[in-house]
Protein backbone atom coordinates (compact mmCIF):
# COMPACT_ATOMS: atom_id res chain seq x y z
CA UNK A 1 0.00 0.00 0.00
CA UNK A 2 1.00 3.61 -0.46
CA UNK A 3 1.30 6.09 2.35
CA UNK A 4 1.66 9.80 1.75
CA UNK A 5 3.57 11.83 4.33
CA UNK A 6 4.10 15.53 3.64
CA UNK A 7 3.45 15.09 -0.07
CA UNK A 8 5.96 12.23 -0.42
CA UNK A 9 4.61 8.78 -1.17
CA UNK A 10 6.05 5.64 0.34
CA UNK A 11 5.35 2.09 -0.77
CA UNK A 12 4.79 0.15 2.41
CA UNK A 13 4.32 -3.57 2.90
CA UNK A 14 3.79 -5.36 6.16
CA UNK A 15 4.80 -8.99 6.29
CA UNK A 16 4.06 -11.27 9.22
CA UNK A 17 6.44 -14.21 9.02
CA UNK A 18 4.48 -16.09 11.68
CA UNK A 19 7.62 -16.57 13.70
CA UNK A 20 7.11 -13.75 16.15
CA UNK A 21 8.49 -11.16 13.81
CA UNK A 22 7.00 -8.56 11.54
CA UNK A 23 8.81 -7.15 8.58
CA UNK A 24 7.81 -3.72 7.36
CA UNK A 25 9.12 -2.87 3.91
CA UNK A 26 9.31 0.80 3.06
CA UNK A 27 10.36 1.47 -0.54
CA UNK A 28 12.10 -1.93 -0.55
CA UNK A 29 14.01 -1.27 2.66
CA UNK A 30 13.14 -3.85 5.30
CA UNK A 31 12.62 -3.13 8.95
CA UNK A 32 12.25 -6.06 11.28
CA UNK A 33 10.24 -5.91 14.49
CA UNK A 34 9.79 -8.50 17.20
CA UNK A 35 6.26 -9.08 18.36
CA UNK A 36 5.25 -8.89 21.94
CA UNK A 37 1.92 -10.63 21.90
CA UNK A 38 0.31 -8.70 24.70
CA UNK A 39 1.18 -5.36 23.19
CA UNK A 40 -0.12 -6.41 19.81
CA UNK A 41 -3.50 -7.14 21.32
CA UNK A 42 -3.70 -3.54 22.38
CA UNK A 43 -3.31 -2.24 18.86
CA UNK A 44 -6.64 -0.95 17.72
CA UNK A 45 -8.02 -1.81 14.31
CA UNK A 46 -7.87 1.11 11.87
CA UNK A 47 -11.63 1.72 11.99
CA UNK A 48 -11.47 2.35 15.72
CA UNK A 49 -8.58 4.78 15.45
CA UNK A 50 -10.75 7.11 13.36
CA UNK A 51 -11.91 10.01 15.50
CA UNK A 52 -15.19 9.20 17.18
CA UNK A 53 -17.92 11.54 15.99
CA UNK A 54 -21.09 12.13 17.93
CA UNK A 55 -23.59 12.39 15.10
CA UNK A 56 -26.78 14.20 16.00
CA UNK A 57 -29.87 14.73 13.94
CA UNK A 58 -32.35 17.53 13.89
CA UNK A 59 -35.74 15.93 13.34
CA UNK A 60 -39.01 17.45 12.22
CA UNK A 61 -41.00 18.27 15.37
CA UNK A 62 -44.22 18.12 13.34
CA UNK A 63 -45.50 17.32 9.88
CA UNK A 64 -45.28 20.24 7.44
CA UNK A 65 -43.37 21.91 4.62
CA UNK A 66 -39.87 23.34 4.70
CA UNK A 67 -40.35 26.98 3.72
CA UNK A 68 -36.82 28.26 4.26
CA UNK A 69 -33.33 26.98 5.04
CA UNK A 70 -30.71 29.29 6.57
CA UNK A 71 -27.62 27.10 6.79
CA UNK A 72 -25.15 25.40 4.49
CA UNK A 73 -23.31 22.11 4.76
CA UNK A 74 -19.98 22.53 6.54
CA UNK A 75 -21.12 25.67 8.34
CA UNK A 76 -20.22 26.01 12.00
CA UNK A 77 -23.20 27.06 14.02
CA UNK A 78 -23.84 28.29 17.52
CA UNK A 79 -26.58 27.19 19.86
CA UNK A 80 -29.74 29.13 19.09
CA UNK A 81 -28.92 29.63 15.40
CA UNK A 82 -32.01 29.62 13.21
CA UNK A 83 -31.72 26.53 10.98
CA UNK A 84 -34.95 26.49 9.00
CA UNK A 85 -38.62 27.35 8.94
CA UNK A 86 -41.13 24.55 8.95
CA UNK A 87 -44.61 25.71 8.00
CA UNK A 88 -47.06 23.43 9.64
CA UNK A 89 -50.62 23.51 10.82
CA UNK A 90 -50.88 27.03 9.34
CA UNK A 91 -48.11 28.28 11.62
CA UNK A 92 -44.51 29.12 10.92
CA UNK A 93 -42.06 27.29 13.12
CA UNK A 94 -38.47 28.42 13.42
CA UNK A 95 -36.27 25.47 14.23
CA UNK A 96 -33.17 26.42 16.23
CA UNK A 97 -29.94 24.55 16.83
CA UNK A 98 -29.81 23.10 20.33
CA UNK A 99 -26.01 23.23 20.76
CA UNK A 100 -22.80 24.53 19.17
CA UNK A 101 -22.06 22.28 16.23
CA UNK A 102 -21.24 21.97 12.55
CA UNK A 103 -23.62 21.06 9.73
CA UNK A 104 -22.64 17.68 8.30
CA UNK A 105 -25.51 17.14 5.90
CA UNK A 106 -28.77 18.85 4.96
CA UNK A 107 -31.30 16.19 4.06
CA UNK A 108 -34.13 18.46 2.92
CA UNK A 109 -34.85 21.13 0.31
CA UNK A 110 -37.00 24.21 0.30
CA UNK A 111 -40.71 23.40 -0.27
CA UNK A 112 -40.17 19.75 0.63
CA UNK A 113 -42.89 18.10 2.69
CA UNK A 114 -41.73 16.28 5.80
CA UNK A 115 -43.37 14.09 8.40
CA UNK A 116 -42.98 14.40 12.15
CA UNK A 117 -39.79 12.62 13.18
CA UNK A 118 -38.15 12.77 9.75
CA UNK A 119 -34.44 13.61 9.99
CA UNK A 120 -33.79 17.07 8.51
CA UNK A 121 -30.18 17.89 9.29
CA UNK A 122 -27.21 15.85 10.46
CA UNK A 123 -24.78 17.60 12.79
CA UNK A 124 -21.26 16.61 13.76
Amino acid sequence: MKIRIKNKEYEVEIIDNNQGKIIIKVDNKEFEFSLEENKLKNILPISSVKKQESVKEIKAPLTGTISDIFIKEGEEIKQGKKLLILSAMKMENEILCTHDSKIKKILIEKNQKVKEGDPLIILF
Partner: protein
Amino acid sequence: MNYIEFEKTDSTNNEAKKGKYKPWTVLVAKEQTQGRGKLGEKWFSPNGGLYFSIILPKTNINDLQTMTILAAFCVAKIIKQEYDLEPLIKIPNDVLINNKKVCGILTENIIDKEIKLSVIGIGLNTNINKFNKELKNIATSISIESNKKINNKKIMEKIVLELKEQFKLIT
Protein backbone atom coordinates in the same frame (compact mmCIF):
# COMPACT_ATOMS: atom_id res chain seq x y z
CA MET B 1 -53.22 44.86 29.83
CA ASN B 2 -49.46 45.00 29.46
CA TYR B 3 -48.81 46.58 26.10
CA ILE B 4 -45.86 48.28 24.48
CA GLU B 5 -46.35 50.70 21.63
CA PHE B 6 -43.89 51.38 18.82
CA GLU B 7 -44.15 54.32 16.43
CA LYS B 8 -42.65 52.15 13.71
CA THR B 9 -41.09 48.69 13.63
CA ASP B 10 -40.18 46.16 10.95
CA SER B 11 -42.72 43.66 12.25
CA THR B 12 -44.26 43.26 15.69
CA ASN B 13 -43.79 39.48 15.38
CA ASN B 14 -40.07 40.03 14.81
CA GLU B 15 -39.94 42.22 17.90
CA ALA B 16 -41.83 39.57 19.88
CA LYS B 17 -39.40 36.85 18.78
CA LYS B 18 -36.51 38.68 20.42
CA GLY B 19 -37.66 36.83 23.52
CA LYS B 20 -37.65 39.85 25.84
CA TYR B 21 -41.31 39.84 26.75
CA LYS B 22 -43.51 37.99 29.21
CA PRO B 23 -46.61 36.00 28.20
CA TRP B 24 -49.59 38.13 27.28
CA THR B 25 -47.47 41.18 26.60
CA VAL B 26 -48.94 42.92 23.56
CA LEU B 27 -46.62 44.70 21.15
CA VAL B 28 -48.35 47.21 18.93
CA ALA B 29 -46.97 49.36 16.12
CA LYS B 30 -48.49 52.36 14.40
CA GLU B 31 -46.67 51.31 11.26
CA GLN B 32 -44.71 48.25 10.11
CA THR B 33 -42.01 48.43 7.46
CA GLN B 34 -41.89 44.67 6.87
CA GLY B 35 -45.30 43.45 7.91
CA ARG B 36 -45.84 39.94 6.58
CA GLY B 37 -48.27 37.11 6.41
CA LYS B 38 -47.69 33.42 5.97
CA LEU B 39 -44.81 32.24 3.79
CA GLY B 40 -43.29 35.70 3.76
CA GLU B 41 -46.18 37.39 1.93
CA LYS B 42 -46.17 41.13 2.53
CA TRP B 43 -48.80 42.69 4.76
CA PHE B 44 -49.52 46.28 3.78
CA SER B 45 -49.00 48.12 7.09
CA PRO B 46 -49.35 51.89 6.73
CA ASN B 47 -50.19 54.31 9.48
CA GLY B 48 -53.85 54.01 10.48
CA GLY B 49 -54.02 50.23 10.63
CA LEU B 50 -53.71 48.09 13.73
CA TYR B 51 -50.68 45.80 13.91
CA PHE B 52 -50.04 43.86 17.09
CA SER B 53 -48.48 40.70 18.42
CA ILE B 54 -49.38 38.80 21.55
CA ILE B 55 -46.81 36.67 23.36
CA LEU B 56 -48.55 33.43 24.23
CA PRO B 57 -47.89 31.36 27.34
CA LYS B 58 -46.15 28.05 26.75
CA THR B 59 -48.49 25.40 25.54
CA ASN B 60 -48.56 22.49 23.11
CA ILE B 61 -48.59 22.69 19.33
CA ASN B 62 -52.23 21.59 18.98
CA ASP B 63 -53.41 24.37 21.30
CA LEU B 64 -51.42 26.84 19.26
CA GLN B 65 -53.11 25.76 16.06
CA THR B 66 -56.47 26.08 17.77
CA MET B 67 -55.48 29.57 18.97
CA THR B 68 -54.68 30.63 15.41
CA ILE B 69 -58.17 29.68 14.30
CA LEU B 70 -59.72 31.18 17.44
CA ALA B 71 -57.91 34.47 16.81
CA ALA B 72 -59.73 34.83 13.50
CA PHE B 73 -62.97 34.00 15.30
CA CYS B 74 -62.29 36.63 18.01
CA VAL B 75 -61.50 39.34 15.45
CA ALA B 76 -64.63 38.55 13.43
CA LYS B 77 -66.78 38.52 16.56
CA ILE B 78 -65.51 41.96 17.70
CA ILE B 79 -65.95 43.47 14.21
CA LYS B 80 -69.54 42.21 14.06
CA GLN B 81 -70.33 43.27 17.60
CA GLU B 82 -68.79 46.75 17.44
CA TYR B 83 -69.43 47.83 13.87
CA ASP B 84 -72.41 45.80 12.79
CA LEU B 85 -70.60 44.33 9.80
CA GLU B 86 -70.76 40.77 8.48
CA PRO B 87 -67.23 39.38 8.55
CA LEU B 88 -66.40 35.99 7.11
CA ILE B 89 -63.63 33.78 8.46
CA LYS B 90 -61.45 32.25 5.81
CA ILE B 91 -60.06 29.26 7.66
CA PRO B 92 -57.63 29.22 9.25
CA ASN B 93 -56.26 32.70 9.53
CA ASP B 94 -57.94 35.42 7.46
CA VAL B 95 -61.02 37.55 8.03
CA LEU B 96 -62.91 38.97 5.05
CA ILE B 97 -65.62 41.59 4.66
CA ASN B 98 -67.51 41.64 1.35
CA ASN B 99 -65.00 39.07 0.08
CA LYS B 100 -62.05 41.36 0.70
CA LYS B 101 -59.38 40.73 3.29
CA VAL B 102 -59.59 42.90 6.39
CA CYS B 103 -57.41 40.90 8.79
CA GLY B 104 -54.51 38.48 8.59
CA ILE B 105 -53.14 36.34 11.39
CA LEU B 106 -49.71 34.79 11.59
CA THR B 107 -48.70 32.51 14.44
CA GLU B 108 -45.00 31.84 14.79
CA ASN B 109 -43.25 29.42 17.11
CA ILE B 110 -39.61 29.12 18.00
CA ILE B 111 -38.63 25.54 18.70
CA ASP B 112 -35.39 24.01 19.95
CA LYS B 113 -35.81 21.00 22.22
CA GLU B 114 -39.30 22.23 22.92
CA ILE B 115 -41.51 25.18 22.04
CA LYS B 116 -39.50 28.10 23.35
CA LEU B 117 -41.72 30.99 22.30
CA SER B 118 -45.05 31.46 20.56
CA VAL B 119 -46.46 34.66 19.20
CA ILE B 120 -49.68 35.41 17.44
CA GLY B 121 -49.52 38.41 15.14
CA ILE B 122 -52.63 40.22 13.95
CA GLY B 123 -52.81 42.78 11.18
CA LEU B 124 -56.17 44.50 11.07
CA ASN B 125 -57.09 47.11 8.49
CA THR B 126 -58.87 49.64 10.63
CA ASN B 127 -58.40 53.27 9.52
CA ILE B 128 -56.99 52.66 6.05
CA ASN B 129 -59.00 54.61 3.50
CA LYS B 130 -57.09 53.85 0.35
CA PHE B 131 -55.36 50.77 -1.02
CA ASN B 132 -52.99 50.69 -3.94
CA LYS B 133 -53.87 49.20 -7.35
CA GLU B 134 -52.69 45.69 -6.47
CA LEU B 135 -54.72 45.55 -3.28
CA LYS B 136 -57.86 47.57 -3.88
CA ASN B 137 -59.83 44.62 -5.25
CA ILE B 138 -58.72 42.16 -2.59
CA ALA B 139 -58.38 44.25 0.58
CA THR B 140 -60.67 46.48 2.59
CA SER B 141 -60.78 48.15 5.99
CA ILE B 142 -63.31 48.53 8.77
CA SER B 143 -63.43 52.30 8.19
CA ILE B 144 -64.22 51.82 4.47
CA GLU B 145 -66.93 49.27 5.26
CA SER B 146 -68.49 51.12 8.20
CA ASN B 147 -67.79 54.76 7.34
CA LYS B 148 -66.54 55.16 10.91
CA LYS B 149 -63.28 56.13 12.48
CA ILE B 150 -61.96 53.21 14.49
CA ASN B 151 -60.41 53.44 17.94
CA ASN B 152 -57.43 51.13 17.49
CA LYS B 153 -56.61 50.79 21.16
CA LYS B 154 -60.17 49.94 22.12
CA ILE B 155 -60.59 47.26 19.44
CA MET B 156 -57.19 45.77 20.27
CA GLU B 157 -58.06 45.50 23.96
CA LYS B 158 -61.33 43.77 23.14
CA ILE B 159 -59.60 41.26 20.85
CA VAL B 160 -56.90 40.48 23.43
CA LEU B 161 -59.46 39.99 26.20
CA GLU B 162 -61.48 37.68 23.99
CA LEU B 163 -58.36 35.69 23.08
CA LYS B 164 -57.42 35.31 26.75
CA GLU B 165 -60.86 33.91 27.47
CA GLN B 166 -60.60 31.45 24.59
CA PHE B 167 -57.11 30.42 25.68
CA LYS B 168 -58.39 29.60 29.17
CA LEU B 169 -61.09 27.44 27.64
CA ILE B 170 -58.83 25.34 25.46
CA THR B 171 -55.83 24.83 27.75
